[in-house]
């Protein structure tokens, strides 16, 4: 395990409506993609092994670090396939309520960002080759990847010089959510956050130190 820096260069806007992308979660998603694992709700919750070091059950990897350079608005739309319903609908299908319920059409605004220098960076302690191999399965970052947002043009994974608190603290400020008693914490805010992947399991939230 060595100190590494990971840089992704993206080709277009990225949708990050929640928190920044965590490297440990990204690598677990890469394993799931590679091994064709069923979605989390369909399988047991055995933890996916990734080549990153751990301390106190927390992966030693930062969240994705980036600066926002520009913003863009787009819409998420969904429409009930009314033409197909007319053509292939069962004769019993007589009425579709499109003003409410499951068939309601929607158009929801959402925001995407362009990263400064089109770059997102992570720091971690891990197996350089293992991380590099897994990242070759990741071609898109953020949300709405299915429609091409956050396309990764290039991954760079290389060794780097560590600093005091590497890779989860810099100058006493957390680079990922950390327990409040993490050694070396100086400047931080307290938020309810999840400490390990999957980060969307909000019921596991605890008080954490964040920047």
């Amino acid at each position, binding site marked *: 395990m060595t100190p590494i820096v990971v840089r992704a260069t993206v080709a277009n806007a990225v949708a990050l409506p929640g928190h920044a992308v965590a490297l440990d979660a990204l690598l677990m998603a890469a394993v799931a993609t590679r091994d*064709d694992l069923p979605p989390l709700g369909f399988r047991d919750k055995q933890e996916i092994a990734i080549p990153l070091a751990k301390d106190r059950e927390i992966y030693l990897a930062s969240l994705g670090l980036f600066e926002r350079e520009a913003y863009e608005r787009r819409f998420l739309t969904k429409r*009930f396939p009314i033409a197909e319903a007319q053509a292939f609908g069962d004769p019993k299908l007589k009425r579709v309520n499109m003003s409410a319920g499951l068939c309601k059409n929607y158009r929801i605004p959402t925001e995407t960002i362009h990263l400064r220098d089109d770059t997102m960076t992570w720091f971690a302690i891990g197996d350089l080759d293992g991380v590099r191999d897994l990242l070759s399965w990741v071609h898109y970052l953020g949300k709405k990847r299915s429609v091409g947002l956050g396309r990764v043009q290039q991954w760079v994974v290389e060794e780097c010089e560590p600093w005091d608190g590497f890779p989860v603290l810099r100058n006493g400020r957390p680079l990922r959510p950390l327990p409040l008693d993490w050694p070396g914490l100086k400047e931080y805010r307290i938020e309810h956050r999840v400490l390990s992947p999957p980060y969307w399991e909000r019921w596991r939230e605890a008080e954490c130190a964040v920047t």
Partner: protein
Amino acid sequence: MHEQIRFDFIIEAMTPIAHASESIGNTSLCMREKRRLPDGSFAHIPIITGDTLRHGLREAAAYATLDAAGMLDSPSLGEAALRLLFAGGMITGSESGGVKLDDYRRMVALCPHLGLLGGCAQNRAIPGKVQVDAADLICKETAHRMPEWVTEYLRENGVALQSCRGHVEEVQRVRMDPTLDPGKRKLLTDGGADVERRLLSSEHGKEVGDAVLAQDSKSSMLPRRHETVIAGSLFFWSVCATLHSELELDTFRTMVGAFLRDARVGGKRATGHGRIRPVVAKQITVQRPKEAPENLDAGALVPKIGSLFYAHVNERKAEVEAFLRGVDS
């Protein structure tokens, strides 16, 4: 099998594309997105969104599945099946627990494209394995982002690059008011007397400067303007999939081939807009960069593929029908 495959295409607009993002007044603007220029600044470039193209793939795959299952000629789909096949389904919230793994496997086995595109079944969102990029207009502002083979194609075929502004045209269309035609007015029950009175009072309103009278009695003729990306414009489009079996590979190819056989995007399709065709296709196996990219003849994509997919669905057509009748999505 573990493979990530990307199809890159140069796509040509056979007819103008009316893919609108929003309307201002009675003018609809074409869909644009920020793209970075070589100097680091941004420009708004016309695109065909990934959402539109992905929906096209989903629709093509759904039709292929219904065709293979022999269900195109007998309307038998319920609301939930229609939602699942053509719009990716909805979280119904009908069960508190997750969908059983067996159910998930059955769904993917019966409708292989659902495993690729994902969707919602019962109370779970199933992630897909296909990423569909937006199609970028090939123009001066995007030339630096194009892969080498695209640049070569443009050079070899003498395609001159224009600014993206040159590719957008603003046109006007009018929905006519049939009551303005005296011949058609004669078809009215009163011979058109009432309409003529209304039109005369509108003219009178204009003459005397009575804006309310002129407005209330005016004809219903509706001129409106819209931006189109002109016919002949070229786009660069990529679609990428992570595949784990020969069936998935064949399903992916069938889906892309079926979509591109008669692809239409954007609005005003009924009036000669939005037809696109692939000019050049390239298949790239992402995980094996040492291998030279295999050139595909885009026109020949369709007849050679789909045998595995069609046979697979056809063998299970009774099960597919039963599944779609009972699906909760």
